[in-house]
């Protein structure tokens, strides 16, 4: 183990998931997520309710597991400071301060979106079987970063680790949110993004006509799903019979348009910026057809190595801390009491 870098205990309670992890550099030694839904039910959460109390009840157990499975002495604590649900963030930050104080180690704040952005650089535990080499993808900067989740749809220019510029963002819904809402309109429950994907696999994506959002206005660098949502509502209303195949086709059409729009805005935007690779993180990466269309559209596309790094998790928080430390970046001597929640926090002002 490279002793230059500290081992990090990372904590994330930005939304519904209670998460803790132990990392070393980009290596994930443990990654514990307590989700109300199963770990693979992605995009957004199931239970915004009681978030704070539930986090409080679970956090000790989650941290204990992460530390035990990590199996190393902790040199530093990293915690999500924002963005996220304020009452949820508080729980993780308070706990992180307590742990850092108790261990007498520094506490560093991490931006949740930056962590999603860097999550493709995480690497599995060295000891895990069959793994000989264990290096992060070799990225030439500047690179592009795309974060697609229930709460975020943003395209970034990564000038280097720690320095980012927002190239495009949503002006209404996040992609994951739009997929969830489309599923809800079809009467499929919540969060329905994953179900919508299953339906879409059996549907004909050219069966119905749906408008392509912002067509011809891609240079505004805005993602938008409001018009698509409205058209979808009308389209569903027009159907006399919502039989199985019709639902499959509707799902396929919505999903295809939503992804096409994403790709078109990215294409238009990157015409004007130099980049080598594109890093993609966030819950919607779980969607296979999104991964496929991204791979088809761009040359070097990197996704996180494990599904557990796709949804909200703490390993990515630790990895972000590791990468920034590796680059000599971090504000590592921050006093625990100085860390306070920041529900809205752009990665442009880190």
């Amino acid at each position, binding site marked *: 183990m490279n002793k230059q870098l500290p081992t990090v205990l990372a904590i994330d309670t930005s939304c519904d998931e209670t998460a803790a992890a132990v990392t070393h550099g980009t290596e994930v030694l443990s990654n514990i997520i307590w989700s109300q839904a199963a770990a693979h039910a992605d995009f957004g959460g*199931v239970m915004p*309710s009681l978030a704070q109390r539930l986090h409080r009840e679970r956090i000790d157990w989650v941290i204990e597991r992460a530390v035990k499975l990590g199996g190393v002495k902790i040199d530093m604590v990293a915690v999500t400071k924002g963005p996220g649900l304020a*009452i949820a963030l508080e729980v993780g930050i308070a706990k992180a301060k307590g742990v850092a104080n108790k261990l007498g180690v520094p506490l560093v704040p991490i931006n949740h979106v930056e962590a999603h952005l860097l999550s493709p650089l995480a690497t599995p535990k060295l000891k895990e079987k069959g793994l000989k080499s264990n290096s992060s993808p070799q990225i030439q900067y500047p690179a592009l970063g795309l974060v697609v989740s229930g709460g975020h749809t943003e395209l970034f220019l990564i000038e280097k680790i720690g320095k980012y510029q927002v190239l495009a963002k949503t002006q*209404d819904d996040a992609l994951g*949110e739009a997929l969830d*809402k489309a599923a809800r*309109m079809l009467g499929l*429950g919540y969060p329905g993004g994953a179900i919508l994907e*299953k339906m879409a696999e059996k549907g004909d994506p050219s069966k119905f006509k749906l408008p392509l959002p912002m067509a011809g206005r891609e240079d505004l660098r805005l993602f938008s799903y409001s018009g698509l949502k409205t058209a979808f*509502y009308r389209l569903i209303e027009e159907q006399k019979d919502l039989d199985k195949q019709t639902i499959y086709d509707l799902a396929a059409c919505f999903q295809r348009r939503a992804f096409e729009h994403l790709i078109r805005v990215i294409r238009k935007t990157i015409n004007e910026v130099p980049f080598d690779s594109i890093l993609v993180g966030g819950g919607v990466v779980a969607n296979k057809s999104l991964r496929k269309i991204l791979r088809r559209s761009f040359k070097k596309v990197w996704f996180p190595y494990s599904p557990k790094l796709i949804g909200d998790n703490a390993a990515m928080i630790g990895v972000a801390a590791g990468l920034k430390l590796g680059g000599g970046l971090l504000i590592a001597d921050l006093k625990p009491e100085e860390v306070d929640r920041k529900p809205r926090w752009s990665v442009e002002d880190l």
Partner: protein
Amino acid sequence: MQIIEEKASNLQKIINVLSGGGLVIFPCETVYGAAVDATNPLAVKKLSVYKQRPLGKPYSIMLPNQKEAEKYVELNDTAKKLYRQFLPGPVTVVSKVRAGLTKNGLAAGVASELGTVGVRIPNYKFLLQLLFKYGKPLTATSANASYKKRPYKIDDILENVSGKQKQLIDLIIDAGELPHNEPSTVIDTTLDDPTVLRQGEVVFSDQDTILSRSEDETKNCGKELWQKYDKYLGQRAVVFALVGPMGVGKTQFTKGLAKAMGVVEEVVSPTFNLEISYSSPGLGASLDHFDAWRLQDGAELENLGLSGKIHDKSVLVVEWADRVADTIRKYNEEAVLVWVKLGYGKGENERTISWGVTS
């Protein structure tokens, strides 16, 4: 611990083990699972020890068909639709536990603390036979200890559990290596419960209506309504309670309102964050944008710090306000409550927007 083959002649043996509170490792169409009788508290406790997970994290249950499922959960229209479409199959549908279910009901720790439980009807013949014959729900959870490798063969399990855990396994049904399918998808239908949606019908006392023909006109309506009520700023909070179906333009309305208030930041949908705060430097006022779509009830709106945000320099917009109408009405004294109802009109881009103030 005993390992047996998957064959009909072993069914009775499996049932005996389950009836005795035993833990059985079983194959299905996703991964190897660990089953106990979901109505037996001791057995469920044993399972939690095996899974190394604390009490309080709920388990899904397996049943052979919808009819049996309805003995334990209340299925709303959304749930019924999902059952029709996907079950039997690798989808777990979360519903409310049937009211009054006590006798022979689910053991503590199976349902969530909100009184919901996930139901799965496996698409695996042997398992369905077992469930039919057993007549009671079994827990559906993967056989790995929490956070370990997905078990597609018995060795995946045995290599990853401790000796102590192994001792807790009473029986293993070995069906060889299973096809590497994904675990089941979990989906919650309880947000669609009519009981939740019915809460607090909105009554308009004095009411105006306009027709909007585009997103821009909807934004403009937000602006005009702000100008109509901005006189209260400095005296009382102004709450815009928005009601209307998906995609009708609630966020568009708020964009227009925010712009008229002098908010510079881009207003986006608050669905995921539940609440987003903006400020209007010019007016020295705050704009808090809430979304009640994912909230279970009004108490959750309070948990988000509603009362602290109601003061004489604050403006609030609450989307899906009908879900939390009773809570909003409580602030009738401290705030001016403007109810805004948005609906789809006849023409493609048309919307009707009505508003009224509760007196």
